[in-house]
């Protein structure tokens, strides 16, 4: 460890960057990113005259759309942190949708939530049994669970739902959660949003979208992200669990019961995916169980987790990005997605300046290059082709992954089987 004076001497020898070449604290980075993105969106919505970019309706939509993806991603995170790749999230989610509908239509939405998590956990248990106890390849077991989830629910819904709903593909109507808002803040922010003043209305719209029209399941699920972070990174239990994903042999030699931790992690993973399925059934705006309704959201959750570098905060950002771009393209279509190009351009310019001040010329150049591409796209087109807009979230993820894949670090032993010698 060098003393401060030594650092100063060293720095005088080089040209001194304006910012120290250390990463700021995670929460500082998180807040700066949020400020940067909201500012960019505010400017964009002012320039392009599209208030929908930061309207509370869009934000509410984004949260509703992000929720199942986020829960699946959180499930993937738990499993991978313990060293088990869980590609069966989709199947566990399907099990969750069926369980939630089955219990929900008889005993109400809270029963649906519990049953959804329980059915997902059953899928997780099966995955754990296959991968941990029997040493099956994680991908093979995951794919099998996806097929099984679809098949079992098809059978069960024909057996149990059809006599009631007269439709083998659909559950009877499931009672939904009511929505809640934080008042009087919601009303107050709504008035601010209505004024359509630059900046203020944008922030008010975003905040209002986050505190109004929330179901209890939404609030609970969002709390699960910091809770997962706390459990995994701030407790002895979490340290042991993560050690199974990094170096199970070392963990074993220190007395950690690797298989037990893996079981716990994969069952929790399944329960979270099942909760994501329940969110597709008992949240307001959803319609109960429908065959095939998950539509690949489990896989997108996995992508959001990789996007977030196997960390809860990043995963949350990734799923919100998916939810937001999806909300934009579903609500307003090509014009707002086109405006997003402008916002991305602004963010990249700021990033380029920041990196340049830190003398990281390579990154600065990359960001400037990206900004130039977006500027060209924005100036040369009036609207994105409508065939492209539904894939906006996927494209954004691809671009971000391509740019940041060098810095991604999965758990070292993820996907490997471990057999204890004992």
């Amino acid at each position, binding site marked *: 460890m060098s003393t401060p004076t030594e650092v100063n001497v060293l720095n005088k020898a080089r040209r001194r960057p304006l910012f120290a070449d250390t990463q700021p604290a995670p929460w500082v980075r998180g807040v700066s990113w949020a400020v940067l993105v909201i500012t960019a969106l505010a400017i964009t919505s002012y320039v392009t005259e599209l208030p929908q970019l930061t309207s509370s309706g869009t934000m509410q939509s984004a949260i509703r*759309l992000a929720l199942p993806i986020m829960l699946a991603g959180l499930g993937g995170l738990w499993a991978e942190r313990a060293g088990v790749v869980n590609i069966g999230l989709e199947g566990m989610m399907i099990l969750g949708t069926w369980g939630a509908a089955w219990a929900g239509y008889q005993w109400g939405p809270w029963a649906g939530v519990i049953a959804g998590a329980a059915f997902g956990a059953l899928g997780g248990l099966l995955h754990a049994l296959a991968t941990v106890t029997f040493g099956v390849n994680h991908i093979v077991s995951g794919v099998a669970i996806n097929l099984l989830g679809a098949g079992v629910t098809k059978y069960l819904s024909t057996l149990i739902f059809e006599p009631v709903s007269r*439709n083998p*593909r659909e559950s009877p109507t499931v009672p939904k959660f*009511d929505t809640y808002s934080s008042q009087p803040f919601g009303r107050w922010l709504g008035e601010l949003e209505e004024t359509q003043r630059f900046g203020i209305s944008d922030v008010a719209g975003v905040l209002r979208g986050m505190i109004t029209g929330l179901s209890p399941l939404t609030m609970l699920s969002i709390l699960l992200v910091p809770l997962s972070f706390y459990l995994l990174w701030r407790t002895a239990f979490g340290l042991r669990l993560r050690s199974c994903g990094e170096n199970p042999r070392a963990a074993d030699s220190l007395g950690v019961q690797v298989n037990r931790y893996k079981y716990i992690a994969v069952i929790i993973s399944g329960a979270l995916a099942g909760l994501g399925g329940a969110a597709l059934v008992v949240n307001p705006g959803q319609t109960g169980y429908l*065959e095939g309704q998950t539509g690949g959201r489990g896989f997108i959750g996995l992508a959001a987790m990789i996007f977030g570098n196997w960390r809860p905060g990043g995963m949350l950002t990734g799923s919100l990005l998916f939810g937001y771009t*999806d909300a934009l393209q579903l609500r307003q279509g090509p014009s707002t997605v086109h405006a997003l190009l402008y916002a991305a351009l602004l963010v990249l310019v700021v990033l380029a300046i920041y990196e340049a001040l830190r003398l990281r010329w390579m990154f600065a150049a990359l960001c400037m290059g990206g900004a130039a591409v977006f500027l060209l796209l924005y100036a040369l087109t009036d609207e994105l082709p409508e*065939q492209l807009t*539904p894939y906006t979230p996927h494209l954004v993820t691809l671009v971000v992954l391509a740019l940041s894949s060098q810095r991604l670090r999965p758990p070292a032993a993820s996907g490997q089987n471990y057999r204890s010698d004992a």
Partner: protein
Amino acid sequence: MRRLRGLLAIPLLLLSLTACVKDDPNAISRIGKGAACTRNSPPAAPPSSSSTTTSAEPVSAPNMRVGLAYDIGGRGDTSFNDLAAAGIDRAKAELGVTDVRELSAAAGESPSAQVARLRGMALEGFNPIVAVGFAYTDGIKQVSKEFPNVKFGLVDSVVEAPNVSSLIFAEEQGSFFAGVMAAYKSRSCHVGFIGGVDIPLIHKFEAGFVQGAKAVAPGIQIERKYLSPAGDTRGFNDPGKGNEATRGQIDAGADVIYHGAGASAKGIFDAAKAGGALGIGCDADQYQQPTLAGVKDIIIGSALKKVDVAVFDFIRAVALGKTADLPKVFDLRNDGVGYSASGGKINDMIPVLEAYKAQIVSGKLTVSQQPTR
């Protein structure tokens, strides 16, 4: 420092929790902020009914073995597969058909699975075979060549072959009525259309709806959205996304929503109900559907596409050996499309709808299949 931050978080959390108030589902605001439309006067009432009575010669075909290949969803989708099933049920009742094989497509299956399904039924001696949905186009093309003596009926798509009857519909004519209903019922002169998948078949729904609405109110504003692009059929099966798209259109000011989105309909009607808007059903009479019972109070009517009529007529024509006499297109003239006013919310409009119907039937008004943008 960390402890301090943690302590700070507690009152904040408590504050937001105590301020948590349940939303009132009845407090729906700002629908109808625009002015009502200036409407064209409806066309003159039609001359007294000149109904075309079809000579119903009794047909009996107890030995006929009918194969039916459903699109994704199969019997029980409350939409057009169910209508095809209704056609088969009518054939059983009226023609005495007893041997029927019904098979369903699985979501995301390969084209070869469709070919195998059709071929399997042909090999087992089923004749005629009805394939429901445009997804079977290539399968029918291939299998109809292999079995020249088997009669095939293909719903929603065209294959030129001597033993294939293409059962296609003038959806734009049915959707025209949806447009007329919407323009009359909209309080803000602003309506919306949600399509399931961005394909020519669904463009016909949009085209008819837009022309119907504009025929009534030329200045009407119309929101349009397709849930998924061509090639991705999930838009027909995603109520969650249908819900968000509908909320978006309602937030933009639309207050009557028509759709062509299959099983996503439930989410669409849910959002319409939550936002104080009205909905118009498609294909079947959706007011009557048990799975939509919770939202039927906002369904003012439906644009009908009578797949049941087409399937029944096809089976009957095969029994008579007169498949060449089947209509080229099932449209208003032969009662292949239409509208329903179940629920009684548009009873006052029926003379208007009938007047437009007479104009379309007589050819004075043609409805284009291409949406204008």
